[in-house]
């Protein structure tokens, strides 16, 4: 015999009812309306159905919100897909460059070269085959661009503060490396600082290298544009603000322009060390 969703529940306990709708299980269906009335959960079948309606509406609304709020998962898929397209476009572009070089002499490389082949006249079947491959390569690169545009539109909706500070693509990358916005929000800023530097981190843990100063956040102008000796400070400052932004985005959804102002000021002071000739204490 199985238990209905209402088994053992207080008829007024909404949270528990929703939990049972979402997570409860049964081997076989049974005459739940009758059992609910017999168990005293409801006065009669009409009252049971009223309660069932209330509870399924609430549980399903909550489930939808939870699944939809996982639009960060869509962003993760998109940014991984963009990386896949960029990588595969480059791999095919190498093949195109080798093949093209054997037919026309060393004429170039990369996706740019593949695009230029799209305009050539075909002299024979080999040219046609190569041009088809070159067009495919260009299309893959275009797909990467298209995904980039999608990310630029979507990331600010999923994580507005993080996108403000890091730009939409870096924001999506951090979310992807962490495995989700919630996961990112739960990481300490020291971890956020080195997300994406896994190889360097591993080498450090094996005793082969100093600890990495920064992971993918290196691509941010505030780190890349800071002189080498101050990059650690800049990375730390940036990672700190990004962590706060991720938490605000996940837990509250408020807009926080003060985070940008604070960050700008801190970076300015760090970068000013270069002119002042100040060494980091």
């Amino acid at each position, binding site marked *: 015999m199985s238990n209905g969703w209402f088994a053992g529940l207080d008829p007024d306990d909404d949270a528990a009812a929703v939990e049972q709708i979402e997570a*409860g*299980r049964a081997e076989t269906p*049974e005459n739940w309306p009758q059992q609910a009335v017999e168990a005293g959960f409801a006065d009669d079948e009409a009252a049971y159905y009223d309660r069932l309606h209330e509870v*399924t509406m609430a549980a*399903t*609304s909550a489930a939808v919100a939870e*699944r939809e709020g996982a639009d960060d998962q869509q962003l993760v898929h998109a940014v991984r897909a963009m990386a896949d397209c960029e990588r595969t476009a480059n791999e095919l572009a190498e093949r195109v460059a080798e093949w093209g070089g054997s037919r026309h002499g060393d004429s170039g490389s990369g996706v740019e070269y593949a695009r230029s082949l799209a305009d050539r006249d075909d002299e024979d079947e080999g040219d046609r085959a190569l041009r088809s491959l070159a067009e495919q390569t260009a299309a893959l690169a275009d797909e990467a661009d298209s995904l980039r545009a999608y990310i630029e539109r979507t990331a600010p909706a999923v994580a507005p503060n993080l996108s403000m500070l890091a730009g939409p693509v870096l924001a999506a990358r951090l979310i992807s490396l962490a495995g989700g916005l919630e996961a990112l929000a739960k990481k300490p800023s020291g971890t956020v600082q080195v997300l994406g530097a896994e190889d360097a981190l591993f080498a450090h843990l094996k005793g082969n290298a100093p600890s990495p100063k920064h992971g993918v956040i290196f691509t941010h102008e505030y780190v890349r544009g800071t002189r080498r000796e101050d990059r650690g400070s800049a990375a730390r400052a940036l990672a700190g603000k990004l962590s706060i932004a991720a938490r605000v985005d996940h837990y509250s959804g408020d807009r926080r322009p003060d985070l940008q102002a604070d960050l700008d000021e801190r970076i300015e002071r760090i970068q000013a060390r270069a002119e002042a000739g100040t060494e980091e204490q």
Partner: protein
Amino acid sequence: MTHPTGVERHDFDGETSLATRGQPVYGERTDGDWRRWDPHRSKLGAMLEHGMDTGLGGGETVLYLGAAAGTTVSHIADFGGPTYAVEFAPRPVRELLDAAESRRNLFPLLKDARKPESYAHIVEPVDVVVQDVATRGQARVATLNKQFLTDDGRLLAAIKARSEDVTADPDAVFDSVRAELSAEYELLETARLDPYHEDHLGIVARPRKD
């Protein structure tokens, strides 16, 4: 063909169509309280327009698999009894929730129809299982959910050929689905749903006794 109680033919801008009474859901035309049940939007509506003998009389307890945004299931709830609506994807369920707001007998569930154990603690034995899931393994879904059907219950299924195999010939797909379904169901009637829905097959079946 007698219509179920609560389903009538009405005139909408010079064209007669099936209709039920309830809050409009998807911009359908209305005639007073009656809203048009568009066979182009609804597979079950198309099955009824084709005169298939669904056995529906009105007031049945129904389990609907693949409720999507609620187009068809809202009509069923208009003339049916307790109606359990199962849909996997969150996006259409937002709209299903709107349709269920004004229908006290419509119970929306964000669940996977391939995992009946995840809603068997909620859904009672039903008179009718209506199925419209665009996924592979449609016969399997019907088989997994047979447990909800009373002995004299009915399965009303719309099978989409392209979901089973996008490259194969639809007739071959339908034969294969019918064969797999026949293990657990006795097929009473099948009909193509053209012109309303291309490459879809409507099936009326009853469960074989184990």
